[in-house]
């Protein structure tokens, strides 16, 4: 067993259980933060948007999900002129203003990063002292100074260090140098101000600092990595990685630190690959994306023996509830599933809700998909501990389809902060809703109704029993 050496200033500890190699191998661990629920790694972190896990209200999160660990981006909270409202949250000395602001229990592990994840590329560029962010009212520059202050004041359990990252296009050679230099400077300054030399009256921060590792080759950031190993080491509690390739060159002396991988795996297979390389905490945007797409996840890890028999076609990773196969299907989303959605409802209802564009659809699918993801990670932990992970992954890759089912229906309405900036000459984001009957108005020379209109013609109406052709 190895234990990450912890400075007094941090209240977090990370124990890796039974690992042969410090890097490049799957590992299970326990991440314990004083007063918080313990995280068994590998585990996924739930991504929030404006402090909410999309479609999941706080009581649903508490009663019907096992969500344990949230990620919040500061950019979601700072659209107002400083100081933003969340800094005014009344708290006791122990409480986190951010948790109180978003109304989550104090024992919920919370990770703060400068930006949402996945972040939307911003047209303005980062500078020597700040990064460009997107708030719900437009682009801002978030200064390194402000971010450190936010970590101090908002008291997240884990803070991800500021990094100069180029989104949307690969950075050029010169830009890459700048990325390293700036990130190096951000890190030095943040560690100084949080742990070494806080401003007058400020106590040392209790937040665990996860230093960013840039999505670059290790040779390009070797100076920075060297300093992480030496000068900065005693103030580091973990590493934040932006691509799985970074897992391959983590220096051995940093091997005992927990690794948070901020990536966007496209399938469970990729999640397994990331874990096989030694990721401890992972982000899984496909979880919410599947829910929005109306896709209910359906996979098990390790693959149950009953499913391992030879099959002509790979087993799908989920199924599309928009599909008309579900119209009268009163079976649960997944046979034997214990989630609230499967216990209370059936496919026909979910299909109806999606086609009626009712928001309850996404709430229920989120509950189900979170349940599947929790079981998936629990299975991974057991498999690693049993020592059968590599074989289990091979079976999984063989049995299941390579990618998730394609989205066929519409997702929920997206808001400005969910979407990339619209440029000139781009098509409308949303189809026109109002004036759908304009054609009918011309036809019948009247009507301003916006009442929901059937998607079906006269034949359909008759078949539906709604009325008959006159």
């Amino acid at each position, binding site marked *: 067993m190895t234990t990450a050496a912890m400075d007094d200033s941090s209240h977090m500890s990370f124990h890796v259980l039974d690992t042969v190699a410090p890097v490049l191998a799957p590992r299970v661990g326990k991440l314990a933060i004083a007063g918080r629920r313990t995280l068994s790694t590998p585990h996924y972190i739930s991504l929030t948007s404006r402090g909410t896990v999309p479609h999941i209200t706080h009581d649903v999160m508490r009663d*019907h999900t096992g969500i344990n660990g949230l990620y919040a981006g500061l950019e979601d909270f700072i659209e107002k002129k400083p100081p933003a409202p969340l800094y005014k949250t009344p708290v006791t000395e122990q409480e986190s203003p951010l948790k109180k602001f978003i109304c989550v229990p104090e024992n919920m592990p919370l990770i703060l990063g400068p930006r949402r994840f996945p972040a939307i590329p911003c047209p303005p560029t980062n500078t020597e002292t700040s990064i460009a962010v997107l708030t719900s009212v437009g682009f801002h520059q978030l200064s390194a100074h402000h971010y450190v202050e936010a970590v101090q004041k908002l008291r997240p359990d884990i803070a991800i260090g500021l990094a100069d990252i180029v989104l949307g296009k690969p950075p050029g050679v010169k830009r890459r140098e700048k990325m390293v230099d700036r990130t190096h400077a951000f890190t030095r300054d943040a560690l100084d101000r949080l742990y070494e030399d806080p401003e007058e009256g400020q106590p040392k921060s209790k937040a665990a600092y996860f230093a960013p590792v840039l999505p670059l080759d290790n040779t390009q950031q070797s100076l920075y990595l060297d300093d992480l190993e030496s000068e900065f080491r005693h103030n580091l509690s973990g590493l934040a990685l932006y691509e799985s390739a970074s897992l391959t060159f983590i220096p051995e002396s940093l091997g005992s630190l927990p690794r948070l991988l901020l990536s966007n795996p496209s399938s469970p297979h990729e999640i397994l690959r990331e874990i096989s390389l030694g990721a401890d905490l992972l982000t899984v945007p496909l979880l919410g994306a599947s829910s929005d797409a109306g896709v209910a996840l359906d996979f098990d890890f390790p693959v149950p023996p009953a499913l391992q028999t030879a099959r002509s076609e790979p087993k799908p990773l989920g199924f599309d509830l928009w599909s008309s196969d579900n119209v009268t299907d009163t079976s649960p989303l997944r046979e034997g599933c214990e989630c609230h959605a499967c216990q209370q409802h059936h496919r026909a209802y979910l299909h109806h809700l999606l086609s009626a564009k009712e928001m309850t659809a996404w709430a229920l699918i989120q509950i189900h998909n979170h349940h599947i993801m929790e079981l998936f990670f629990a299975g991974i932990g057991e498999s690693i501990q049993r020592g059968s992970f590599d074989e289990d992954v091979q079976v999984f890759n063989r049995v299941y389809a390579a990618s998730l089912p394609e989205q066929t229906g519409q997702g929920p309405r997206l808001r400005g902060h969910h979407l990339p900036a619209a440029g000139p000459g781009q098509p409308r984001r949303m189809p026109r809703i109002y004036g759908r009957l304009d054609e009918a108005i011309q036809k019948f020379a009247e009507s301003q109704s916006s009442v929901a209109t059937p998607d079906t013609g006269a034949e359909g109406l008759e078949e539906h029993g709604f009325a008959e052709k006159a």
Partner: protein
Amino acid sequence: MSTTAEPSRKPMPSALTFARHAKCSTTKARASTLHLPHGSVPLPIFMPVATQASLKGLTYDQLRQTGCMLCLNNTYHLGLKPGQAVLDAVGGAHKLQGWDRNLLTDSGGFQMVSLLKLATVTEEGVRFLSPHDGTPMLLTPEHSISLQNSIGSDIIMQLDDVIATTSPDHARIKEAMGRSVRWLDRCIDAHKNPESQNLFCIIQGGLDLELRRQCCAEMVARDTPGIAIGGLSGGEAKEEFCKVVDTCTGLLPEEKPRYVMGVGYPEDMIVAIALGADMFDCVWPTRTARFGNAIVSSGTLNLGHKTYAQDFGPIDEECTCACCRPTKQGGLGITRAYMFHVTQKETVGAHLLTIHNVHFMLSLMGAARQAILEDRYPSFVRDFFSKIYDGDKSKFPEWAVGALRGVGVDLLAE
């Protein structure tokens, strides 16, 4: 129009029992319990509207926790989606949506008002052009009842000829009233499950009290298990609304529940209860929640307004809904500042406020009921208006003062 008390009328079974507990000694307010096939409903009650078989983003667990025993589905919408064939295959709307408490469906008649320009009403039914392909269609009372039988709701409504109350065409209003009575007869004949589904008639007659009286007489004679007062909340003056409710309740039998359709502002409900009404429905509380408006004892708060950006109090101090209850009491400790942060930006904002608003309306009804049981409804009404208008009697709405004076409550008295 048919004459009253036709001897050949078939006996009307009922799938409900209506237990009256107390009547206010001053006003016409009643406290009672309506026992329906899927559980008992305390009256007076507000019924939230789950238009398309879901209450706007809430799970049915969450709806249950607001205390809701009876919610609405919309026949028009369920008829289009998922459609009668699916409802039959699934086994009705309760099974479709996983709701084990009561459902009420309207007949689709109200949607005629909204679609009226595309539709013409004839004695046979409503003729309209399919909005999709323009084919002429006919919706009849028989269709409506057949759909509601497939839906399996505990309370079903007759198809009525709805026209805007503000219509100046008196002859048309009179025609609509008479037609609604004739359509009720067709609905009763077409109704396949009277022993498990309660058909309510709908009193029509616009704002003409004489027409309303005639309609009451005709429809009471048909002996439906419950009675609705329809055609209101269409933009008429509140004074007129109160007169219609007051006139109708005066003619309706005491031993049947009375449902005023489409009413849902707290003030309207509190006054209508004093006038003898028992049941209300409205999309306003849930719709306004999605726009960021919270209903509280002092009125309505637009939580999207920047004055709430740094207000860390609960949505309503006195409310005991899951959102407003502090975490120490098992609640979520949601603050106004947080609502400001998410309202109209995240669906969760809409869900939370929907929970609050529905809970608020139900607990308002619960408090009114308790006041009636303890025979202190007049003082309850005074307190209620006093809270909204901050004790300033000069701001009390005239229509409410007038209507309440008519049932023996002087809001302006010291």
